[in-house]
């Protein structure tokens, strides 16, 4: 009778277990925590019998279908686990392996360092090692690399993909920053912004345009006599209007231009072209890229009304070779030494051109010191006196 009763009980318990498990699964994802009250409110356990609930939950926990956790707000709580996962747990040979597996499981997509496993479980290293070996051989877990800690040996559940934080987002390939990819993409984004934010027009050669020290205008601008004006027009005007030497340049857009490309548009363009076939780039990623270009001084943000677009800086100085042509050249091996992002030639000033501006011993250089302006080799080279220094010596000995 007692045995029958027990069998009957266990059968009933099994039914209750199944019913409760199914009901829990209906009520939320794997991450949701259920408290005791939540479970009772599911109306599976008759008469809200707490003892029975304990039994059922214990049974489910033994089957690894429920995981007990302690939560700060609600106290003891449970979340459910899928049957396949539970099966994996149950197939493990011993408790140690199970504990190791559960700890890796909990770490989720971020993965976990093997030292952390050891410290958390307070187990001997060899035991942990054995467990990991077993789990790896079963194909339950895999080793992974984290970009933030490239030297740490980390493990992750085999069924999961490492999280963004661990892989570093779309810019990383196998834990390494993919600079080639980034540069290529920067080039494309820059080209897009360049063509969208500047006007491709032609301009007469600068010879006919006013020269750069352009305050040339005499003081007499307003007081010019009529004869002077006609004279002026007949000589200077044709040179600027009918001159045949035109060159293609990018011109800045008039103020208030409303169609400077925004980040959203750039992202859409990148998406539509499908250049990045196996990585998806969100707007935030493109924003990062655009920011870098901005910091490089190649583009600048413009705010027209409430639209934040980007435009190329120093449009007139930009290279007008179309992108596809440059790409073709590159394939043919021409211009490989040029950067992928071809911006305008950086401004220069006297300091960067004089030898001193880039001299490695600038701080030591002083008259009377071991390195001094009078024996400076860089200056000799800069002034084109290199050959003279050797050639002049014998000449100097000749009498005048």
């Amino acid at each position, binding site marked *: 009778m007692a045995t029958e009763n027990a069998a009957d009980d266990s059968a009933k318990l099994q039914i209750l277990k199944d019913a409760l498990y199914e009901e829990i699964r209906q009520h939320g994802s794997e991450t949701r925590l259920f408290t005791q009250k939540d479970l009772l409110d599911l109306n599976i356990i008759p008469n809200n019998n707490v003892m029975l609930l304990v039994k059922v939950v214990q049974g489910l926990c033994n089957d690894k279908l429920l995981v007990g956790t302690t939560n700060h707000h609600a106290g003891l709580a449970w979340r459910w686990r899928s049957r396949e996962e539970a099966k994996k747990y149950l197939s493990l040979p011993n408790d140690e392996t199970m504990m190791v597996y559960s700890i890796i499981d909990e770490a989720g997509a971020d993965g976990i360092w093997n030292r952390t496993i050891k410290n958390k479980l307070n187990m001997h290293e060899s035991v942990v090692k054995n467990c990991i070996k077993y789990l790896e051989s079963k194909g339950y877990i895999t080793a992974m690399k984290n970009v933030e800690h490239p030297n740490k040996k980390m493990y992750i559940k085999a069924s999961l993909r490492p999280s963004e934080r661990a892989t570093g987002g779309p810019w990383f390939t196998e834990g390494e920053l993919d600079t080639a990819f980034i540069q290529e993409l920067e080039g494309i984004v820059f080209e897009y912004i360049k063509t969208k934010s500047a006007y491709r027009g032609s301009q007469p050669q600068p010879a006919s345009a006013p020269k750069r020290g352009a305050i040339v205008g005499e003081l007499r601008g307003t007081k010019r006599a009529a004869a002077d004006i006609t004279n002026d027009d007949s000589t200077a005007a044709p040179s*600027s209007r009918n001159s045949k030497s035109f060159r293609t340049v990018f011109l800045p857009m008039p103020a208030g231009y409303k169609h400077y490309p925004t980040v959203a548009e750039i992202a859409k363009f990148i998406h539509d072209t499908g250049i990045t076939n196996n990585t998806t780039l969100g707007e935030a990623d493109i924003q990062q890229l655009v920011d870098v270009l901005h910091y*490089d001084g190649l583009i600048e943000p413009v705010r027209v009304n409430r639209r934040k677009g980007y435009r190329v800086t120093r449009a007139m100085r930009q290279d007008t070779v179309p992108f596809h042509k440059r790409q073709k050249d590159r394939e043919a091996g021409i211009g490989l030494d040029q950067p992928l992002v071809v911006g305008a030639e950086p401004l220069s000033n006297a300091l960067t051109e004089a030898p001193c501006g880039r001299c490695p011993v600038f701080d030591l250089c002083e008259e009377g010191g071991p390195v001094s302006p009078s024996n400076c080799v860089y200056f000799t080279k800069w002034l084109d006196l290199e050959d003279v220094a050797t050639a002049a010596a014998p000449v100097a000995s000749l009498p005048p």
Partner: protein
Amino acid sequence: MQVTKPVAELCTLLVDELHGELPSRIFSTLVNKGRSTLPQLAQYTSMTPRQLRHGLAVLVQHNLLYHHLDPGAEFAFYEANVEHAYNLVRTGKILEMVDTSFGPAAKDVMQSLLLSGQTRIGDLLAAYQAKIEQANKKVGTNDTEEFDGEANGVNDDSKNEPVVKSTAHLNSILCRLIEAELIDVVHDKTFESPADVLKIVEKEVMDKYFPNGVKGNKAKAEFQQRIAEGLRKVRDESKSLKRKLEQNGSAAKRRKLFSGLGVATNGSGAQQDEEMDPALDPKQVIRVNYEKCLVDLRNRRLVQFATDMFGETTAYVYGILLKLLTKDIPRCRLDPVLDSVDDDDDDDSKKKGPGVVTTDQILDNLKTSVDLSLGIGKAERHQISSRAANKVQTHPPKKKRLIAEAEVDGEASEDEKEDDESSEGSDYDSNYEETKPNGASGINGANGVTHERRMDRPTQLRQHLMLLAESTQNFVRHCGPNEWTVDFEPVMKALREAELDSVIERTSGRQGLRLVRILRAKGKLDEKALPNVALMRKSELQQKMLEMQTAGFVHVQEVPRDVKADVKKSFFLWYCDVEKSLSRLLETSYVTMLHCLQVLEALRRKEKDVLQTTKRTDVRGREKDAMRKEYYERYARFLACERKLFAQVMRLDDLVSVLRDF
């Protein structure tokens, strides 16, 4: 101006270059030892008082020296005027500037003035009189030569025919230059150092208004104000000639009267003009006013900056705007004591800002040969938000403390203004697809809508101005409908930053620039956070940062996590102090200039024998024929190097001016 070791050496070399060794030795002693009396100088330099007097006279003549005699004292104190010594390097630039804006004759006058230092007008007149007479005599005896001179064109005629044709012409030139404030009057206070002037004025004010001492805040404020007034009076003294000229009615006004009658204003027709100018008092002593010259040089630099950023046509418009705007600006940087107190006075528009220029004024001054349709892209009318383009900013931008904060600030104000434009904003999305091919193909620009594109000249001009106003560098502020002004401080800040950036980019590459600009935008940043923002490999980044730290472009701060200050656990915060980098850049520029001059010095030593030959009277002037071939080649090469080095020094001065003076 801070006098550091390189500056002192540089100025000494410059004095040596232009005025010879004796003055330069005295100058160097004065710079190194500070204020000295004649006996002290004799002791320092072990020269005889006679020699010293000679040297000092030259220095005083060129305003390279201040002197001060305390009442009742036996000896005067001498003090080096380092600013003016440095200004010697700008001689060439100033001459070129005068040449382009006032013509070759004015350049000639300016050159004589720069060569002879402060001069009495009478002496200048006499010198030119002699020159003109000599030239006339030559012309009279030798007709062919004159013919040659004319055939050669205008550049060459200084030898055969003086650029200044008569003393009346000279007088008129001087009047022009004085009106432009490029020349001012020397008075006894110009020989006192600013500190002495301040002391004198202070004493005067004390004696006159506060015989019992200054007590209380109110009295202190009044005291300050009186001092400022006194200083201003001293400063205005050098403008006495200009004021006198203005009382007679300025040349511009007089010319306006004539232009109605169709009188040509330059060349032969200028005769009337010259006669109109009042003869200047021959006893007045005049000198070059470097402060005003700097204003004009700054305009040139800004125009060049605009050329780099936009293009020639826009920059040309900008140049005209600047010229009109700075006509009445006496100096680049306002003096904190002299110019601040004016605020409570009535005419704040004149003192506080550079005033405004209207579109029409600019239009009147543009050369008719300039095609304003160049330099700006074309866009359909509906692609342009005229409201955004025409936005008027009545007030100069506020001083920005934190960049991030300022950005947010800007957004907010813009949002307020343009809330009502949402309807316009919404429709551009719909037509965006159709208008897409605007810039990419250029087809749109070539055909079709050309009739609409033909804008009249004022509109074209406005386009250039609005482009300048929209720029991130704040070239121009649209301060009222059709009124434009320039806030020099932010523009110069942008220019300084651009100079720094170009140095960084040239020395540390684009990635270096990227890192610096990130730090500038974000403030202090932990070493670990940088790679994510810069999208750079950690190792590369660290190397670059170290490189730039040694160059002084970025700085690092170590913040310990706990009291033990374990290096491994500390935070390392990178930051970038623009001011610090700029001052280092300035110092580097001085040293580089110094090095250039020293290299030249070394070259001269090396080629001593050749140079001595060229000094012989039978060789001078016909070096090519008189010297042996190798010798002449060496000489020519030396001259080329000298030119190169001087040009380099000049260009370095461009940088120094931007960093220090503008």
